[in-house]
């Protein structure tokens, strides 16, 4: 048996409403190349862990929820998240290819810290790319995630070209008070995003502390313990600073 016939899945959330359109089954893949200090799923980072699934088992599992995805089946679907789902590229490809062929709407939640080969391989099977930009300044990115952002930003531009103006790219930006909401960072972000051609929307997410307990459990400490959670006010202020971005800006305001 080839190794990629089995995937490591941290967990499955069947009432996903925050990671893509409609009601979604969110599959959290195990493993992540980045080491974000604010990670809220730090227990997904290690390459092994969770439960092992075959493609058959995982497809069967998520398809049990297809009745909740609307009459067309497209008002919801499956979101692959993690960790970073591209960390298990062969398993990811086999999984979403199978689902896509069964008319399931697929969202991928990724940092794009992966190879162009992987991006190109899964491209036909993804309906919406949700790519999170952690920070526009290279140094700060390195501080926050352990890696430079060069490769990620290049991948985003490459994906944007591949998508060929089809609005299938949602850029997510985590508002971390004092870290990602500086005017300099936002100006760079605005300039970067505005040049992209295949944007569906830009989504601002408030940084929350709900993943801290996992850090404490696993490491006894939390690296961003001095940073406060973002409020809606923080998000609104960032939205204001990004007002000239020529795309829909999602802020979670009701």
């Amino acid at each position, binding site marked *: 048996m080839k190794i990629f016939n089995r995937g490591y899945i941290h967990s499955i*959330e069947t009432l*996903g*409403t925050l990671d893509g359109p409609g009601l979604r089954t969110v599959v959290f893949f195990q493993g992540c190349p980045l080491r974000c200090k604010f990670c809220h799923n730090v227990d997904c980072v290690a390459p092994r862990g969770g439960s092992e699934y075959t493609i058959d088992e995982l497809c069967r599992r998520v398809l*049990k*929820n297809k009745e909740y995805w609307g009459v067309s089946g497209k008002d919801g679907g499956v979101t692959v998240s993690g960790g970073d789902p591209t960390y298990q590229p062969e398993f990811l490809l086999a999984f979403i290819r199978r689902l896509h062929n069964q008319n399931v709407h697929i969202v991928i939640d990724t940092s794009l810290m992966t190879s162009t080969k992987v991006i190109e391989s899964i491209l036909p099977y993804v309906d919406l790319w949700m790519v999170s930009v952690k920070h526009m300044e290279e140094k700060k990115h390195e501080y926050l995630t352990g890696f430079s952002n060069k490769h990620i930003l290049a991948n985003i531009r490459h994906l944007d070209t591949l998508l060929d103006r089809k609005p299938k790219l949602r850029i997510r930006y985590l508002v971390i008070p004092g870290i990602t909401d500086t005017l300099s960072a936002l100006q760079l972000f605005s300039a970067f995003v505005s040049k992209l051609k295949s944007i569906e929307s830009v989504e601002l997410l408030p940084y929350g502390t709900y993943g801290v307990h996992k850090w404490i459990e696993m490491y006894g400490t939390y690296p961003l313990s001095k940073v406060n959670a973002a409020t809606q006010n923080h998000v609104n202020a960032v939205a204001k600073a990004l007002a000239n971005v020529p795309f829909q800006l999602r802020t979670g305001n009701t």
Partner: protein
Amino acid sequence: MHKHKLVKTDFVQGPWIDTIDVHNFITRNTVAYSGDEQFLSSATKRTKELWEKVLLLMRQEQKKGILDLDVETPSTILSHLPGYIDKKNEIIVGLQTDKPLKRAIKPKGGIQLVQKAAEAYGYHIPQHIIDTYTNECTTHNDAVFSAYTPLQKLLRSKHIITGLPDNYGRGRIIGDYRRVPLYGTKKLIEERLKYLENDSATLDDDAIQLRREVFLQIQALRDLTTMTKNYGCDISVPAKDSKEAVQWLYFAYLAAVKEQDGAAMSLGRIDAFLDCYFERDLQSGFYSEQEIQEILDDFVIKLRLVRHLRHPEYDALFAGDPTWVTLVLGGSTINNKSLVTKTSYRFLHTLTTLGPAPEPNLTVLWGKELPLAWKKYCAKQSIDTSSIQYENDDLMRGYFDDDYAIACCVSGMSIGKDMQYFGARANLAKVLLLAINGGKEEPYGNNKGGDTIVPGMKSIKSGRYLHYEDVWKQFTHLLDWLAKNYVDTMNIIHFMHDRYNYESEQMALHDITVRRFMAFGLAGLSVVADSLSAIKYARVKPVWNKRGVAEHFIRTGTYPAFGNDDDRVDSIAIAVIHEFMRALRRYSTYRESIPTLSILTITSNVVYGSMTGETPDGRSAGAPFAPGANPLHGRDTCGAISALNSVAKLPYKDCLDGISNTMSFVPHSLGRTLPERLNNLVQLFDGYFVGKHGHHLNVNVLQKETLREAQKHPEQYPQLTIRVSGYAVLFNRLSSEQQEEVIARTFHENL
């Protein structure tokens, strides 16, 4: 309001003119509505002022437990003179006694219970009333206990069959209150007189009983007519307009709650029916939308004032003083035509005009073909008020046709054609422990256990670990034993209830010949399924105490738990239901009633849990069960949809008395924005009901912190309403133990 001018009856005619056939009237006259809620009117100044008066009284009531009690006057249809909140400002009139929230005694159910209940609130029943109901009248409670066998008493005192309606009114009977406005009592009486004039070829026990009952029904209709004369109305003739239609209908219901104090006195299905009057009067310009809403608001205020006198043990089982004025809304016809009318909206809108409240118990019948605007409005009101429950219309129509309603929480019945003999529930977790302990009672609390309940059973004690096959065999053997005794017990209760505490007014609003259900119930389903799953998939070793019963279970390994859409354990839950129902069907029932089963606990999951020892799934002794058919708190780890899917697998055909499921969501878990939340909730309902054929769902949308705040500052949350198993309750009226249980329940948060 308007001076009365006579409105011509210009309803579409049909067979309903000649025979009593409300369904036909509705079919001919209903105007379905597929628009949105924009047409609704807000509360008038009058409504607000009247509701403020009522709220003031309710606050006093909450402080004192009950506001007032008339100890002198056993309640009947005619016992009390007219009562008003504020006579000149009321549109719909009528109270159970002469004052709002003043309760009455109904000693036909049992005089000792009335005494106990009165004393709990500092009142005393006069000696002459005690003497009358001790020496001269047989009460239902006395009658039942005169016939119970020792074993039946044992099963009751050992909490194996629990909450039986042998010390409170059985309720769960829905009169077709619509017949009164549509036909007037004169015609209804004539129909029954005609029946009594017939000579019967065979006059056996059944026929004699029925003749006697019909006679009592006629008397009740006459009393009802007299009662309304005291209010200055003549309901012997049909209602002439919208206001009279509501008033007549309410009078018919009021007579029922004056005569009876059954646990659930449900109202039925009246939205399309009343809408026929409203639509006609709106068209003719006789009433405006504002006036129609005002009539309904006033009516709903009255429904929120219904009260019964309950004793403390009753409150422990059914917390928060519920009356289950269950009112179903919407649904479709058997030809898939929507029955959603503007009046369906108007009733849901009372949660806005008057604010959230537990009563009436608003129950939306969900189906595939209903208008999207309606579905979204329901979702909106749920998100705003947590006061609505949902039930699967597409599923129930197959069993009850399209003119059915819900009694209590989840009990479907064709209106005026079906009635049920309510039977509370058996504690199956205790039965599983009996199976493991070879028929001996398990230890819990201060009870060391070891008493023999089922003699002659072999202990399962051989070997270190429990074997699934052995336990299953003993368990199903006991299910049969339980079924026999449960059926016998129910037969006694309802034989006596029919004779000594008969619901003559409600049954007068049924067809003379009715279909009867005998509604059994089970509690602790998820505990039983998880325990059996633990025995099957993990390894469970009992620790036996000196009395030879398991006082503790040691588990190694993990097991699939109910609530994760995992067939390995979900199939066990299904098998338990199937076996129990199969056993119940083996025994003959009183008046050839059809046995049905519910998976419903009300708030009794807390009490039942406290009376049950440690179970093999890891639940500790005394810990609460999950409510109804819910997974046990915290064991559903894959999110709400998986939990819904597990419950939706339970077979309705084996649980025709309903499968209750309660879910709490924090608002954020349904989406980031309100439009997203509305869409997602509608989609969740469509998935659960239409896609997965689930039966029932209670929906709460709130923050845990709100409940914590309400515990600390109850005065700031006078109308905070939450759904518990099958009904809604004011959070402040729960015991602190029940409040904790509600807060501890899984809140679907999805981060």
